[in-house]
């Protein structure tokens, strides 16, 4: 079975600093994969490379088997890959509804088909309906995160990349947001979830990859990997493979 999304010996650098050293990951239809690792391990860099925000070789990223590495970000969205970026990156000065409408507009322009509509999103996160006219910068962190997720979903993605969606949020809010993920998966959307919280990452994913200093140090089924294996892979005391 061809992976929906895969990377092949992916290399990425920021100027002279090499951030990723040959990353191979795979994401299959309807699957949720977690990407864990300490700060600076290269998780966000990996997502940014996939999204065309860093220059990478054409063959290093494949979507349904087609080489797409280095494709412009807006074209990647058109091809069905959306991202909930680190730090949420909402359009400040615009209302919640306008932030979401930007995605609806572009999906319509590109002729993207999918099941996500404003009413459906309002079912998933009712607060977004209530706050529709509020400027996004006056929302709480959790509400902003819901807008960021909603904006990505309204791009009608087949692959959703979530970059640290729990960062800086209260535990109750994190639970609320993570509770929405199964419903998103139920639509057939495959997901890569970057997460610092290992427990959260394991419970939200089928498989996981652990990264350390730009390399994948552990991979396996989330339910089968032991805490000791993750500990070693996370902190670099020997590499483990399941």
């Amino acid at each position, binding site marked *: 079975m061809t992976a929906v999304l895969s990377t092949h010996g992916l290399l990425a650098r920021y100027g002279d600093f090499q951030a990723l050293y040959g990353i191979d990951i795979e994401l299959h239809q309807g699957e949720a994969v977690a990407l864990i690792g300490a700060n600076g391990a290269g998780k966000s860099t990996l997502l940014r490379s996939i999204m065309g925000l860093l220059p990478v070789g054409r063959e290093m990223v494949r979507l349904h088997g087609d080489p797409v590495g280095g494709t412009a970000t807006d074209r990647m969205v058109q091809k069905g890959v959306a991202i909930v970026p680190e730090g949420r990156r*909402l*359009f400040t000065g615009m209302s919640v509804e306008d932030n979401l*409408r930007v*995605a609806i507009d572009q999906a319509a322009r590109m002729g993207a088909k999918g099941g996500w509509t404003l009413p459906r999103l309002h079912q998933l996160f009712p607060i977004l309906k209530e706050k529709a006219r509020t400027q996004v910068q006056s929302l709480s962190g959790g509400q902003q995160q819901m807008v960021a997720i909603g904006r990505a979903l309204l791009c009608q993605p087949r692959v959703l990349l979530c970059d640290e969606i729990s960062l800086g949020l209260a535990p109750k809010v994190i639970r609320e947001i993570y509770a929405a993920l199964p419903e998103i998966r139920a639509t057939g959307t495959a997901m890569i979830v970057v997460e610092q919280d290992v427990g959260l990452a394991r419970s939200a994913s089928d498989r996981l990859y652990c990264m350390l200093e730009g390399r994948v140090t552990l991979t396996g089924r989330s339910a089968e990997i032991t805490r000791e294996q993750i500990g070693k892979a996370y902190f670099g005391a020997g590499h483990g493979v399941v």
Partner: protein
Amino acid sequence: MEWFDALVQGILLGGMYAQYALGMALMFGVMRIVNISHGDLVILLSLIGISMASAWGLGPLPVLIVLVPLAVLMGWVLQKAVLNRVVGSDPLPSLIATFGLSIALQNLMLQIWSANSRSLPGHGIESQSIEIGAVYIGLLPLIVLAVATGLTWGLDLTLKRTRFGRALRAASADVEAAAMTGINPRAVYAMATAAAVGILGFAAVFQALRSTVAPADGPAQLIYAFEAVIIGGMGTVWGAFVGSMVLGISQAIGFRIDPGFGVLAGHIVFLIVLATRPQGLFGKALA
């Protein structure tokens, strides 16, 4: 009464400034592109319009109908060929590129049209006026103000309500996040600059009807446009309109005090706004 007349004339003059300022509000206020050649583009379009009128015997309206699409095309080419290469979080590259373009355009115009002042024949429209009470209101300035109001209204609505407007506001807030939402920022910017220069097509016709234009006049128009946008506040279209009114009224009142003081009075009011309310009358204070 004399001062009331100055106020009315100031508002009418503000209508002219608003036509320069709207394009600036879009490029500088929303996209954060500093276009030093803004005024030179107005003059270039005016001179093209004047040449068309004399070559083909066209009246002001046909000139306007031909010039605005031409201006739109010029704006699109300007963004595609020059500005898209220098646009980014740093405003300096766009400033330097358009500064060079400004000098090149002025010299090009000098070469083609010489340094003489010219104007567009209005077939009598420029000398008609309406008397209201004791105040005479020129028909042409009234048309200029009406067109400026219409353009402001249309641009404001376009930014707030259309797909293009939302995409432009999104790209201005965060270019990378806009691309992550499927927007092609360069295409959106090209459309925005096309719209901004298209509005200058209106300004060019009215400027050439109201007074004379010469190749070296651009920089003064640039300053008025900058001042109006900054008085009104960055990123607000109606702010730029009101800023233009403030500038026009200041100049008209200054002119009544002393004919040599008019333009300076506008600059002084601009500096007072900059010193006391740097975010502009309608701008939001930066946190």
